[in-house]
C-alpha cells in the first residue's frame, strides 16, 4: 500500500511515537536541549540586564547588540541540534544585512528580528524543558524502580526509596511491576509528544523563510529580473545609438561628400581620399562596436560551454586566469548565461582591482553549482549596496543563487556563487 510505504520512508509526524531509534533521538534532544536552553536563557537574561544597566554609558548598547547576536547564534545552535535529533530540518533565517558604520551596525544588530525570535524560543522552551525532566524523567525512574521491585523485594522486603513504592506481599510487588511497565510504555508517548511540541515551536521561531517569505522573495526577485532585462535593453539601445549608429551616420556623411565631390568636374582627389579614409575608419569602428555589443548580449563562445567562454573572457581582458569547469552535465542555457555573466564580471573585477592572476573554478556539489573566483590581490572586497558585487548578487537571486565574499585585507579574495541546478 502506498500510504504504508510512505510511512516507512518519512518519519511519523503525528502523535504516535516512531521507531525506537527516533524515540532515542527525541529523548536525547529532551536531555540536551533541556539543559542547554534554560542555561542559554540565563546567560542571555544576564547579558540583557548588564546591557540595560550600562546603557546610559552607551557601552550598554554594544553589550546589548552582542547579546542579540548571541541569541541568534544560540537559535542557530538549537536549530542545528533539532535538525539532527528531531529530524526537523529548518531553513536558516536570512543573515543580518550589515552596512558600514557603527550606528548602522547597532541598528541592524538590535533590530535583528530573527535573533529576538530565537530569544522568544528560549523563553517558551522553559516549560518544555521542565516537562521533559519532570514528566518523562519521573515516569522513567518510577518505571525502572517499579519493574525491578519484585526482584529487590526478596533482598530488602522494604519500601523503595523512590515514589514510596511499598508492598507487604510478593504478588503486591508484581502489581507495582505491572504499573512500572505501563509507566515505561508511556515514556515514548510523552517523549514524542514533547518532541512534537518542540518541533512546532522551532518551526515557528527558529526557522527562516516559510512559504509566505518565499513568496515575497519570489516577487522581489521577479521584479529584479524584469528590471534587469529592461535595463539591459535600454543599455543595448544606448550603446547602439552612441556607438555603431553614430559611426555609420558619420561614415554615410563622408561617403556622401566624397560621392558628390567625385561628381564635380574638378575633383579634389586629396579631399576624396581623406574622406574615404575617414569613412573606412568609421566602418571599422562600427564593426568593433557591434561585435562588442553582440558579445554583451550573448557571447558566441558560450555555445561551446562555460570553460571556452570564460577562457575567452580571460584572453580578451588580457589577464592570466586558470579556468576549470567540472560539471556532470551542462546546465540549461539560461542558467549557464547567468553563471557566465557573474563569472565574467568577477573576472573583470579582478583585472581591474587586483591585477593578479585568478583562478575560476566551477563544480557541482549535491545539485548545487559552485562558482569560485580566487585571486591573490590586496583583498578588502565587500558587498556594499549599489556596488559591483551587490549587483552580481542581485542578478543571481532570481535563480536562487547566493554570493559570498571572503576578502580579508591583504588578500586573498575568494568570491563564491552557489546556484542550485534543476533536478
Amino acid at each position, binding site marked *: 500500500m502506498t500510504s504504508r510505504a510512505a510511512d516507512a520512508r518519512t518519519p511519523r509526524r503525528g502523535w504516535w511515537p516512531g521507531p525506537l531509534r527516533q524515540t532515542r533521538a527525541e529523548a536525547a534532544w529532551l536531555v540536551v536541549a533541556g539543559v542547554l536552553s534554560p542555561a542559554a536563557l540565563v546567560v542571555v537574561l544576564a547579558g540583557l540586564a548588564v546591557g540595560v544597566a550600562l546603557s546610559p554609558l552607551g557601552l550598554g548598547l554594544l553589550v546589548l547588540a552582542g547579546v542579540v547576536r548571541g541569541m541568534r547564534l544560540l537559535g542557530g545552535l538549537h536549530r542545528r541540534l533539532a535538525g539532527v535529533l528531531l529530524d526537523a530540518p529548518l531553513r536558516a533565517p536570512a543573515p543580518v544585512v550589515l552596512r558600514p558604520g557603527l550606528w548602522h551596525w547597532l541598528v541592524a544588530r538590535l533590530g535583528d528580528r530573527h535573533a529576538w525570535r530565537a530569544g522568544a524560543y528560549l523563553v517558551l522552551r522553559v516549560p518544555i524543558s521542565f516537562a521533559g525532566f519532570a514528566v518523562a524523567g519521573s515516569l522513567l525512574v518510577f518505571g525502572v524502580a517499579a519493574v525491578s521491585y519484585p526482584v529487590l523485594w526478596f533482598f530488602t522486603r522494604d519500601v523503595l526509596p523512590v515514589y514510596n513504592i511499598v508492598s507487604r506481599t510478593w504478588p503486591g510487588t508484581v502489581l507495582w511491576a505491572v504499573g512500572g511497565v505501563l509507566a515505561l510504555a508511556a515514556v515514548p508517548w510523552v517523549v514524542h509528544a514533547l518532541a512534537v511540541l518542540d518541533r512546532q515551536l522551532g518551526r515557528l521561531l527558529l526557522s527562516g523563510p516559510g512559504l509566505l517569505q518565499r513568496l515575497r522573495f519570489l516577487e522581489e526577485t521577479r521584479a529584479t529580473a524584469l528590471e534587469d532585462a529592461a535595463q539591459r535593453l535600454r543599455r543595448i539601445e544606448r550603446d547602439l545609438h552612441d556607438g555603431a549608429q*553614430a559611426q555609420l*551616420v558619420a561614415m*554615410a556623411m563622408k561617403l556622401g561628400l566624397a*560621392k558628390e565631390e567625385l561628381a564635380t568636374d574638378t575633383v579634389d582627389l586629396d579631399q576624396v581620399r581623406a574622406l574615404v579614409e575617414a569613412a573606412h575608419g568609421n566602418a571599422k569602428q562600427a564593426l568593433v562596436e557591434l561585435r562588442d555589443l553582440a558579445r554583451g548580449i550573448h557571447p558566441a563562445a558560450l555555445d561551446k560551454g562555460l570553460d571556452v567562454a570564460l577562457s575567452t573572457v580571460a584572453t580578451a581582458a588580457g589577464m592570466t586566469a586558470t579556468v576549470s569547469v567540472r560539471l556532470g552535465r551542462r546546465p540549461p542555457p539560461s542558467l549557464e548565461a547567468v553563471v557566465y555573466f557573474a563569472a565574467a564580471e568577477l573576472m573583470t573585477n579582478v583585472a581591474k582591482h587586483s591585477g593578479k592572476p585568478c583562478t575560476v573554478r566551477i563544480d557541482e556539489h549535491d545539485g548545487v553549482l559552485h562558482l569560485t573566483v580566487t585571486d591573490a590581490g590586496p583583498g578588502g572586497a565587500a558587498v556594499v549596496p549599489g556596488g559591483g558585487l551587490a549587483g552580481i548578487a542581485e542578478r543571481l537571486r532570481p535563480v536562487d543563487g547566493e554570493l559570498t565574499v571572503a576578502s580579508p585585507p591583504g588578500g586573498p579574495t575568494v568570491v563564491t556563487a552557489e546556484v542550485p541546478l534543476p533536478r
Partner: protein
Amino acid sequence: MRIVIAEDSTILRQGLVELLGLRGHDVVAAVKDAEELRSAVRAHRPDVSVVDIRMPPSHTDEGLRAAIELREELAGCAILLFSQYVETKYAKQLLADQAGAVGYLLKDRVAEVSDFLDALRRVAAGETVLDPEVVRQLFAATGRSGPLAELTAREREVLDLMAQGRSNSAIAADLFLSAGSVEKYVTSIFAKLGLPPSEGHNRRVLAVLRYLGV
C-alpha cells in the same frame, strides 16, 4: 549661412562641422548639450541651428525642449531637429506653433549631402521640412478621416510631398507633372481643406499641418 550645431556625439559633431565647412558655411558654434545650445543661439543669432533631440543629461528630449523654448523667445529662430529615430510626438510639438522655419530630419539623411544642405537652406528661409519617415508615421497616426478623406489619391501624393517641404516645381519633377497641374492640385487641396486664399504663403504650412493632424 551661419549655423549653430548642437550634438552630443563627438564624432557626429565634428563630421557636421567638417561637412558644412567644406560646403562654405560658417559654423559659429558647435556645442554638446541643450544648455550650451541656448546660450550659443542667444549669442550668435544664427541663420539656422542643427539640433540633436537626445542630449545629456537625461538623453531624452532635451534638444526638442530647448528648440521650443528658443522659438518662443526669439521670433523666426530657424531650427532643424536632427535625430536617429522618428517620434511623432516630438514632431507635433515642434510644429504646434505653426510659424514655419522648422525641420525634423533623420540623421541618415546626411548621406545625401546636397539634399541635406537644401533642407537646411529651406528651413533657414522659413519653410517647414519634414523627413518622409516623419510624414509617413504622422499620417499613419492621423488616419484618413475628415476633410482629408475628400482628397484624391493624386492630391494626397502632392500634399505628402508638400509636407516634406518640396516646392511646386520639385513636386512637378517628382511626379512627372507640369508646374501648372501641380498648381491646380495645390489650389484644390487648399479648397478642400477649407483654407481661404487670404492667408497667403502660410496656407502651405497650414495645409501640411492639417494633413499631419497637428
